């Protein structure tokens, strides 16, 4: 079965890392482990727009314990990768998927579908 995903990864993608923005945030902070900055800096560093959707994704990752958020009296909260999180093993497996594997294609399809669903739900909550 070509779209088989590791159960831990499937659970992570289904429950916590459920859209492309979150995937890109996590990929970035795992590649740049010392990163620390506000939402705008993070978005620009990744190459995305610091939109309201981006901030919401970041806050949800912080709520899930994957990102750390600190206020420290600064104008906007700063974010950094949580050094310890319970999804660590699943995140590592997720980021290790080779881009030309069927599993990665399956992952991208799922994340794209979930991202589209989120966008639709935010804009058209009654649908």
């Amino acid at each position: 079965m070509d779209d088989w995903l590791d159960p831990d990864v499937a659970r992570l993608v289904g429950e916590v890392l459920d859209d492309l923005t979150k995937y890109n945030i996590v990929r970035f902070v795992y590649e740049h482990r010392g990163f620390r900055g506000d939402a705008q800096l993070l978005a620009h560093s990744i190459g995305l727009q610091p939109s309201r959707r981006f901030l919401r994704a970041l806050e949800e990752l912080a709520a899930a314990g994957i990102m750390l958020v600190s206020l420290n009296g600064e104008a906007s909260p700063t974010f950094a990768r949580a050094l310890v999180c319970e999804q660590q093993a699943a995140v590592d497996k997720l980021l290790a998927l080779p881009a030309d594997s069927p599993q990665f294609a399956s992952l991208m399809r799922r994340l794209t579908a979930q991202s589209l669903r989120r966008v639709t739900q935010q804009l058209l909550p009654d649908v």
Partner: protein
Amino acid sequence: MSASPTPYGRLLVAEEQLLLSRLNLNAHSAARVCGVSVRQLTYWSDRGLIPTAGARRYGIATLNKVLLIKQALGQGYTLQRAVRLVEERLALAEAARTAGEPLSEGDLRVLVEARLADSLAGVRRCRQTLLAESATVGGRASTSPHGEGLTPHQAPLSAPPRPPDAKALALQLNRAIDDLADALEQLAETDQALARITE
């Protein structure tokens, strides 16, 4: 006895307007006045998002536009969307100014319908981009084993196709979704504006 404006006072007001119309700042001064970085300002002008008066010179109309864009960005809009909103607002203001009175219902309807058509075109473009990006993920081997646009006879002998870059693919998909979300959001706003006129 009420104080009438002195000739000097009137002269000063006239001079002020004249000065403003002739304002022509360099990038550093314009950026300082508007509270944006020089890099931001030149990036916007290089991309044609704001007009320049000559080589990297900025007039009062441009400064006004920069301030409005900055305000829209602060409200969480993307740059592309902020520019579009500001241009629409400026076009409406200009139309009202030249007409000397508020826009008629008919004119407003034409403007909103044009914006609706534009939004729909944006959604269609984003959808096509998204479909193209999705086809790229995991579909390279099946769609083009010989390289893009090449028949088996034309396939290059060396340089086998590079494996896709996970990071780049995920980012491209993400950006396509963001563009689509922006276009849909704009469509919803335009639809509401049209409904308000129709009521």
